[in-house]
């Protein structure tokens, strides 16, 4: 019973309204697992997708692959994408990043400052930011339906 109650409460939490929607996306600068550092504010004018992941999260790998496909399609339309790893151990996150084979930067947030500012309460979690730097949508968990919803929202943002 306790497990069911906990599961229900987590589901409710996952579906709860995201407080940052409509607000300016908190700026950050993070080290990348491979390559140079990245700063969000440098991508003002582009639609930015942030995906929070962890090396211990199995659906995160699927989610990152989906995002990578969408980046290949919409990159020329002004889409930027970052994966933000929340692992405590940067070495573990780097190993995951190397095996993920995605074309966008996978950033490391071991101190979890960025994760806290984006109120990450679920993994994977994807945040969509419009060209003016405002948080427009959030997707928690991964599902095929969620993928369709993500693509719809992304197209809408890119068309604005």
């Amino acid at each position: 019973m306790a497990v069911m109650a906990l599961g229900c409460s987590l589901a409710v939490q996952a579906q709860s309204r995201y407080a940052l929607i409509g607000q300016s996306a908190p700026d950050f600068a993070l080290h990348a697992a491979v390559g140079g550092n990245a700063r969000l504010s440098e991508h003002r004018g582009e639609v930015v997708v942030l995906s929070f992941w962890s090396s211990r999260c199995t659906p995160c790998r699927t989610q990152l692959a989906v995002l990578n496909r969408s980046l290949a399609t919409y990159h020329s339309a002004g889409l930027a994408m970052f994966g933000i790893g929340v692992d405590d151990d940067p070495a573990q996150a780097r190993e995951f990043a190397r095996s993920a084979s995605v074309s966008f930067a996978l950033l490391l947030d071991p101190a979890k400052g960025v994760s806290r500012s984006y109120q990450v309460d679920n993994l994977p979690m994807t945040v969509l930011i419009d060209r003016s730097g405002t948080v427009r949508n959030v997707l928690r968990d991964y599902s095929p339906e969620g993928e369709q919803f993500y693509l719809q929202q992304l197209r809408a943002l890119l068309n604005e």
Partner: protein
Amino acid sequence: MLQMTRAMPPTDAAPRHAARAALLAPLLAGLLAALPPTALGAPPAGPDATTPAASAAPPGAAPAAEATPGAAPAAAAPPGAAPAAESSPDTRGLDEEIQGLKKDVVDLNKDLFILEEELLFPANTQVAVFLSLDVGQFFALDAVQLKLDQKEVINYLYTPREVDALLKGGVQRLYLGNLKVGAHELVAFFSGKGPNARAYKRGASLRFEKGVGAKYLELKIDDRQRKLQPEFEIKDWE
């Protein structure tokens, strides 16, 4: 609160802008949605009139205002081609009005920024730290940590674009703060890739005397060709 005060238009300009807005209201609908009402010259209705202005002009409002002119010609274009040709002088006038309003908004933002700095960092307590990079053959900058009187004041991570800008001669204002008159110590830690692409971390420190006026310090990263090593220096601009 600063924005509220500064967003108020000059009193003599208010009736002029209000008349324009009344004449061009249908065509300016898109612009009105994006710009702060006071910037368009809506006359202040009293002390409460500042509140909507503040809510309509948050710090992030500038990009939205900048994005509007792109949409304005589309909004100004009439449905048919023939009416467009007839009303072209009006459209041109409208474009000029829009450009004028856009310039007003930019000027207001500039004034606001200057006023904010003057209030937050008065000249008698102000201390500013700048960073410049010369050549960069022996050092690829990654991050700078700054400590003032043993207290960390900033830890800045550099992206490849920022490093490129510094290498092209840019000078970055890394820190702006307040310090009381007297003796102080600045310590800077530079981390990045040194010769042979190895992880490289060095520090530099400076004891300085803060007088009555503003204090400007510069962190300089140079290449020392003779030693094939980077050199880190803190310069006090008297």
